[in-house]
């Protein structure tokens, strides 16, 4: 019997597999018993009502997906009245993903979702900060630090900062998030990308550009998870293109303590169930008693000084 449990800043997960925000909701419980997951992570909400972006909101690019959904939200009260109670039927910890256009609005929401039944808050700091030229908070270390300070003051719950790949300063942003009060890092959100219909010469997404997810994002997210694990002392939760147990193992070896499975669920709704079972089989085969024995075991002595903080192609 192998031990799949991991600890994320004091929160014990029965296994390291959880859904990525935006690719999971109550509806997945219609396909399988979601109690088997390490955590439940809700779709990002904002305080107020939001319609989201124009359609088409999704298209496929090779074996990956582009989306620009725009965080449609029914607001915080609908969330607290309807969504949080749904998950009380489960023992699996509930992680609530939130976002805000300004640091103060973000912090207010952070305080409002600090309620019974919520185990941790994932702060989606990859969203645009409208007070600072619309660029995502997590693009720069300074705006990351400032927003995390305000969020930290707004809740006693563990804060997971979700970083963006759309930065050239991954280690600096990761350290700024930790210094600002993050208890864990989710690495990472989707990568800004684009697709054009050559017949109509129009963008394939209604919002012109969107976020790339799926297998082609994986090596980028893996590189970032490694950088973040090396440059901070808080747990890293890998996220980006993870579809198989092999992908999960790669992230754990790179230093992630847990992972989020996102787009893969759209292709195979039971992908997480399969990944948990295969991860367990892998550990048995490798005669490892705990999944924790894999974390951060990358053999990188000779190269690490040079590449950890590299942000340019070698």
């Amino acid at each position, binding site marked *: 019997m192998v031990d799949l449990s991991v600890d994320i800043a004091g929160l014990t997960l029965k296994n390291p597999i959880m859904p990525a925000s935006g690719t999971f909701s109550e509806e997945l419980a219609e396909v399988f018993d979601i109690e088997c997951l390490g955590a439940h992570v809700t779709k990002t909400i904002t305080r107020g009502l939001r319609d*989201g972006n124009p359609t088409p909101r999704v298209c496929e690019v090779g074996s990956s997906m582009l989306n620009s959904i725009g965080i*449609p939200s029914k607001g915080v009260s609908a969330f607290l009245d309807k969504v949080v109670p749904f998950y009380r039927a489960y023992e699996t910890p509930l992680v609530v993903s939130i976002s805000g256009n300004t640091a103060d609005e973000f912090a207010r929401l952070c305080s409002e979702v600090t309620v019974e039944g919520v185990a941790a808050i994932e702060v989606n700091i990859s969203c645009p900060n409208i007070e600072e030229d619309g660029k995502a908070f997590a693009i720069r270390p300074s705006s990351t630090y400032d927003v995390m300070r305000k969020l930290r003051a707004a809740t006693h719950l563990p804060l997971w900062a979700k970083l963006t790949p759309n930065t050239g300063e991954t280690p600096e942003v990761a350290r700024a998030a930790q210094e600002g009060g993050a208890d864990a890092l989710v690495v990472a959100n989707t990568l800004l990308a684009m697709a054009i219909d050559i017949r109509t010469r129009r963008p394939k997404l209604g919002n012109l550009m969107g976020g790339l997810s799926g297998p082609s994002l994986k090596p980028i997210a893996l590189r970032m998870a490694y950088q973040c694990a090396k440059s901070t002392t808080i747990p890293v939760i890998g996220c980006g293109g993870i579809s198989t147990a092999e992908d999960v193992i790669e992230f754990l070896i790179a230093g992630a303590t847990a992972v989020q499975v996102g787009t893969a669920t759209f292709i195979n709704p039971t992908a997480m169930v399969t990944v948990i079972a295969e991860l367990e089989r892998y550990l048995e085969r490798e005669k490892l008693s705990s999944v924790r024995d894999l974390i951060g075991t990358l053999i990188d002595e000779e190269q690490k000084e040079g590449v950890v903080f590299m942000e340019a192609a070698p």
Partner: protein
Amino acid sequence: MTSVLTRPASAAGGRAQPVVFERGLAVLSNDPVNGEYMRLVLAAPREMLDLCRAGQFFNLLCPALGGETPYLRRPMSIYGFYPERGELHFLYKVAGAGTRALAQLREGDALNVMGPLGQGFRIDDDWQRLVLVARGVGLATLAPLALEANRLGRHLTAICSARHPDLLMSIDYFRELGAEIIPVTDAEGTSSLEHLEQVIEERVAGPGIDAFYTCGSNRLLTLLQRIGKRHGIPGEIALEQQMACGLGMCHCCVRPFRKGDKTVQLRVCREGPVFDIQEAMPW
């Protein structure tokens, strides 16, 4: 391909009951029905077919065949479901990477499907005289409605539109199910909106119409909204949108709808794909 049974024997109290299947199903046949459309017949388990309703859809994991590598699942409305003989049917037009790959499937191959999904057609107890109006592959979406009307013993008139009489989808099928067929085609010059309006108005005045059903066409939507409002006849429309998850998680497939004086965004996969015809907005 392995068959994944994802439905637990029982779910604990207070929790959602799994009601959506993800399964690899065997292909029984996959043949052209005319120059443009193919019919795919899958062997499906009784418990899956018993959950199906006319108007619902499945999200198909199209195989990597024929040099195609479709990635996202493709939503496809149910063309027919037959619990008594264990068959699930889809009708499709080969249009893109997903359907080109589907067209490669042969008897004995497996296709992974997820469903049934979404809200099907509503047929109220006092809706005795049903009229469906559709064009092209839209007729496929409405075909299970004919099956349901037949099972419920309702009178159905199918106004079937196409470019050419050879492309009139499903009319034999409708006829077998006891529907009255009114074909209209571009080639014969009978498919204009003016002519359709006249045909429908004659039926409103004659035997009467209790409900309209349509799908896919902006022109038919606005025509039926107008006639429906004029005479107080309810109706439903099946709509499409680019989808990803098919379950309601991703919010990719929204469309705008009128609710009172507000416009709301609803998910085609979840609140639909069948909607109230007066709430649907032309696009």
